[in-house]
């Protein structure tokens, strides 16, 4: 087990190294440097800039140094907890990232808190009796919500609840300070989208378990139906959905760009998009490291959790 976690972490460091190096190399091209200058000083100012002044600007920004050297400096900085400064916002990347991660974390927390119980409940109830009305209903709802793209759901919800009924604010920019109400629509959009996927997985897993021979044994042992479901079926049926749910963490971090941008919510996804458009290399680098970390961490959690849920793996 420790060996597994160790090798996963090693893999993670390797991925981080390779990806950040590639990103650095790409963003080092003259075109991107100029892009940054245009973004910062404005297109007209840059075209009026003499070559000498441009070089001076590069030096001021620290962009004139060869990229491998900058890369090494950056790596050394990261090792000491310094992620550099954002070109665009002129703030330390670490602070910027921290607030954004908290925002996205809050969003993810709410999505999980609603989505997990809902989808497990619906999935299990549907899978208990394949082909029953509740099964068909769940299948229909989950296919419907999953097949709607997030952007469509977001628009529909905004039109109904914000513009039509005027119950909720139409965006989550929260210019006047933190507002929980503004969070409702983004959370709802994500829950709707993810619910169908997890519910369908749970349903399939539960249905498979209900058809297994050991459930037949449990029923023919004369156990009450409740006991068959709660003690015999549930644990085995939740092994597969557990893995999937943990892997949703990864999706919630970087997959929420559409929702965050649509609702103007200052989260991690929006930060990533802004940085990419600006060419804000240090922000991109740091965000990538975080994304890789979350991906690997969720992978480790799902592997470890799987072995605990499944005794066959634990003792193998």
């Amino acid at each position, binding site marked *: 087990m420790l*060996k597994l976690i160790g090798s996963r972490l090693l893999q993670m460091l390797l991925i981080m190294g390779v990806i950040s190096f590639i990103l650095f190399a790409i963003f080092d091209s003259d075109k991107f440097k100029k892009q940054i200058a245009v973004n910062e000083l404005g297109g007209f100012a840059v075209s009026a800039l003499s070559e000498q002044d441009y070089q001076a600007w590069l030096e001021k920004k620290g962009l004139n140094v060869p990229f491998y050297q900058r890369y090494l400096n950056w790596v050394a900085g990261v090792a000491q907890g310094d992620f550099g400064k954002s070109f665009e916002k002129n703030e330390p990347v670490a602070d910027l990232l921290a607030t954004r991660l908290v925002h996205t974390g809050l969003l993810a927390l709410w999505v999980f808190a609603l989505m997990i119980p809902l989808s497990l409940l619906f999935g299990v109830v549907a899978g208990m009796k*394949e*082909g029953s009305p509740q099964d068909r209903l769940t299948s229909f709802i989950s296919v419907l919500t999953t097949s709607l793209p997030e952007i469509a759901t977001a628009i529909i919800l905004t039109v109904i609840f914000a513009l039509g009924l005027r119950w909720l604010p139409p965006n989550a920019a929260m210019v006047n300070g933190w507002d929980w109400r503004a969070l409702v629509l983004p959370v709802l959009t994500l829950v709707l989208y993810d619910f169908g996927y997890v519910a369908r997985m749970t349903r399939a897993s539960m249905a498979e378990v209900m058809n*297994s*021979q*050991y459930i*037949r*044994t*449990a*029923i*023919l*042992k*004369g*156990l*009450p139906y409740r*006991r068959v479901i709660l*003690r*015999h079926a549930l*644990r*085995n049926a939740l092994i597969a959905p557990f893995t999937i749910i943990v892997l949703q963490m990864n999706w919630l971090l970087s997959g929420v760009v559409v929702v965050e941008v649509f609702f103007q919510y200052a989260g991690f996804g929006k930060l990533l998009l802004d940085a990419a458009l600006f060419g804000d290399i240090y922000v991109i680098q740091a965000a990538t490291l975080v994304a890789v970390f979350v991906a690997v961490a969720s992978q480790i959690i799902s592997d470890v959790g799987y072995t605990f*849920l*499944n*005794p*066959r793996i634990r*003792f*193998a």
Partner: protein
Amino acid sequence: MTETPIVEAATATDRTPVLECRNLCVSYFTRAGEAPAVVDFNLKLMPGEAHGIVGESGCGKSTVALAIMNYMGRNGAIVGGEILFQGRDMRTMTQEELRRIRGSKIAMVYQEPMASLNPSMRIAEQLAEVPLYHEGVSQREALARAESMLEQVRLPDPKRIMNSYPHQISGGQQQRVVIAMALLSNPSLLLLDEPTTALDVTVEAGIVELIKEVAAKFGTSLIYISHNLGLILETCSRLTVMYSGEAVETGAIHDVFDNMRHPYTRGLFGSIPVPGANKNARPLAAIRGQLPLPYARPKGCFFGPRCDYFVEGRCDQPPLMMHEVAPGSSHATRCVRFAEIDWSAAKASVAERQPVQRGQVVLRVEDLSKHYIIESGAAALIGARRTVKANEKISFRAHEAETVAIVGESGCGKSTFAKVLMGLEPASAGKVQLGEIELANLPVQRRDKHTISRLQMVFQNPFDTLNPSHTIGGQIGRVIRKFGVESDPKKVQDRVDQLLDIVKLPRDFAKRLPRQLSGGQKQRVGIARAFAGNPDMVIADEPVSALDVSVQAAVTGLLMDIQREHRTTLLFISHDLSVVRYLADRIIVMYLGQIMERGTTEEIFSPPYHPYTEALLSAVPIADASVRKRKIVVAGEIPSPTKPPPGCPFQTRCHYMIKGVCDVTPPPLREFGADHVIACHLEKDALEKMEPVITAGTAA
């Protein structure tokens, strides 16, 4: 929890049958319509009686068991008749009443013990549930009962087993746990659905012994479902033979075995290799044709199209009723013509065949060993490695036109040996020579076309070995082209037709896809494929164990015919001693990777025996009431190949075990006759003094 007596209320006396099925009809409802699975099934089971239900796959025998349990899934239903349990009709019971009977009055043992136990619950909890929910005893009491029941089913170290998960114990132990679970509430009826089919023969013998013992001890009535007539003979006093959803013959076991009165029963017995059957003098007769599908059954007698005694106008007139063989007798048959058929006449059947003379040595195996090295977890870190000796110093020869059988239970290394021979795994040491070519370290990728085509294989499972998206003709033709036998499309086609003729399949099967074929037909295609390149030698790895008995007979017959014609050497790998006795010329008995005994078929089946061979012979159920067997107790289970015992591999289970000798030094080879070798510490004269295990009865 209060237990209201449900069944006791009925007038249950000794004369009330425990179970009675009257004209039971069960159907499954599919999109194609209603498919009758069981039609007009009658059964009367008295207390303490054991009743066997025999039939091939798809005959409805498991459906009967599940119908008795009233558990037929969503699409199954009892459409007629009644099931009386201790005098009460089970169809009128509520779900709650059924629940109280299930597991307490009627318990069931299943075919696959591993799949029947919950993988994520400890054995203790799974067992304790039974008294907990049926009798409302305390948790402690329930656990104590569970543990004592594990002891009663002869499980070693019940404490450890209580704390284990199902996957941590062996298959035989799992089945004992399932039996313990069934017995915990002292049921009056025990349903056994192929309880030993997934187990090795020596383990099977132990389970069968246990079942008989507990049934006698607790006075439990049994319904024993099996495809194996020998097992039914050993366990039951009455028997029902089923075919295509119908009971075709029923009666006391000796009436049915000795005076069978239905052509299907007779056909079934004719296709089982019992001692005395011989591939040359008394070849097995397969039943021609195929089992009809449930919605395509013929009018009248379902067996009609496959029956030699079929008469138009009588056999195809429904309904066919059960007839008492003699007035007042409990022996009944569904054959309308049973009174006219001359049952004593020898079966107009398969002609006697000339024995084949064996030729030159084709395969020479010398001191072949195959070791696997396992590196696991923490052990790998400190450099400790375990070696699994899958094959250890195997030596034998096979001649042209000869059938050499390798027999052994799971883990004996017989399949590993086949892999080494085929070049799928390199040998660790030793030599394998096919003709003049050394194969031991020649992986299949480096063998030339000619070598590969000379050594072919027929696989165990015909269902998975054919590519589902290519036609039969395409798959056979590809082999012909690959081996360079023919390249011209026309000639390839001719050769495919020729091969289909050889395996007795219609030529237009070349255009079919595998899913349109039955299991037996697929195995014929597998054989055609193996023989496409005119091989010198064919390895058949359990080629018939996935098939029904009547199909088995046809496939083994086919292999023999092809061998006779092409003088192919056949290496027949099997766990089934009956089949091996029938068709092998020479036999190699393996145990945990080593050869225990080798010799001709007669030498193996008569003394002197290796103690393992002796135990194996005693464990095989024989479907012949006149045969007597000497009972030999084999203790315990097959050790794991990763931890073989020191000295002789069989010492842990051998009742001749000599302390200080057998568990220290590997056994010496004792030679008897030309090529009869026994690896045992017992002295030659001690081995020679052994009595025969199987004695044919006087009655023919």
